């Protein structure tokens, strides 16, 4: 059997349609090495079957299990308990910010997914195109033409952490702009320039860099947004002088 030697209290955000927000406390015996998502699943399985939450792969590829844990965005399937609390401590679990809540820990990611389609974001690209340009030496092999799923899991954590997204849902947000950046790097599609070159596109970013800080997956949206600004400016200057 597993060692379960920490006693931790989980305070979980609860809200069903047309009801008020409240937190339910669940005292749990946990293994400090197990993941936050495992405990949430145990809460559902043994304590409260009415708890709703999103999860699928349990290994950081699907991006479904993003939540706020003690106020910080975490991908709960790869966040060990010992990273967020100590024996006798509390773990506050809330849904991602800046998305409409469907119930409890489930938020509506529909608009977010559809915007990614607007950015024509491809999930499978060559190794070369999948990593950040300044990582190519370590990430790309010379002997072969490989493809892989990209870094962005579409988890929405960057949007949750962004102070601009906090104040308006019109802002495309880090994930979408990072996606447009990647699409442009691969395809030079001018539609990406027009997607980004808007008041609610790249120009709305105010350099808080929380997106890069919370991304569980090496996307570095902060860098990509600024690089996209460079790309947009370059393209505008070209257009101006080629008239």
């Amino acid at each position: 059997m597993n060692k379960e030697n920490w006693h931790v209290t989980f305070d979980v955000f609860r809200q069903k349609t047309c009801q008020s927000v409240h937190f339910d406390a669940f005292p749990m015996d946990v293994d400090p090495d197990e993941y936050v998502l495992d405990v949430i699943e145990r809460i559902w399985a043994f304590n409260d079957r009415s708890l709703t939450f999103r999860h699928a792969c349990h290994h950081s590829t699907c991006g479904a299990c993003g939540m706020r844990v003690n106020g910080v965005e975490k991908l709960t399937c790869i966040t060990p308990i010992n990273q967020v609390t100590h024996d006798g401590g509390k773990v506050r679990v809330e849904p991602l910010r800046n998305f409409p809540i469907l119930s409890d820990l489930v938020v509506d990611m529909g608009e977010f997914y559809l915007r990614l389609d607007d950015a024509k974001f491809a999930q499978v690209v060559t190794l070369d195109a999948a990593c950040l340009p300044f990582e190519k030496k370590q990430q790309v092999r010379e002997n072969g033409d490989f493809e892989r799923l990209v870094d962005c899991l579409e988890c929405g954590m960057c949007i949750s952490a962004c102070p601009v997204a906090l104040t308006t849902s019109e802002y495309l947000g880090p994930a979408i702009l990072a996606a447009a950046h990647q699409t442009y790097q691969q395809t030079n599609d001018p539609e990406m320039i027009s997607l980004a070159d808007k008041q609610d596109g790249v120009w709305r970013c105010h350099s808080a860099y929380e997106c890069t800080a919370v991304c569980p997956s090496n996307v570095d949206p902060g860098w990509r947004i600024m690089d996209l600004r460079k790309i947009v400016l370059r393209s505008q200057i070209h257009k101006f002088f080629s008239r």
Partner: protein
Amino acid sequence: MKNESNSANLIRWFDPRHRQLGTWAFILNRITALGLTLYLILHLFALGNLARGPEAYDGFIKLAKTPVILIGELLVIAAGLIHGLNGIRIALNSFGIGTRYQKQIFIGLMIVVAACLIIFAKSMLFGH
């Protein structure tokens, strides 16, 4: 609903809890901006004293040399340095320069601010 994007959430910009260094720069830039704007307004009022004749102005200058006002002026210098230097960092980032090292650059600039403040404080409070 409280969880959704809303312009009323703006007050939460100034809450640095659970956030990282980039947010501190973000918050400092806004607070120093508000502070400097307030200072500008006060400064204009003070200058208005010029129109009220030499005694009124001299009286104000005497007040300006008291420690409270001097410390206030140090805060203004701090705000100016923080806002200006961080502003340069943000402007460079906006052109894709230094984005990968934004944290280190911010720390470096704040050290410069601290050093300048120590020098200015020395000469303002203990010099002359």
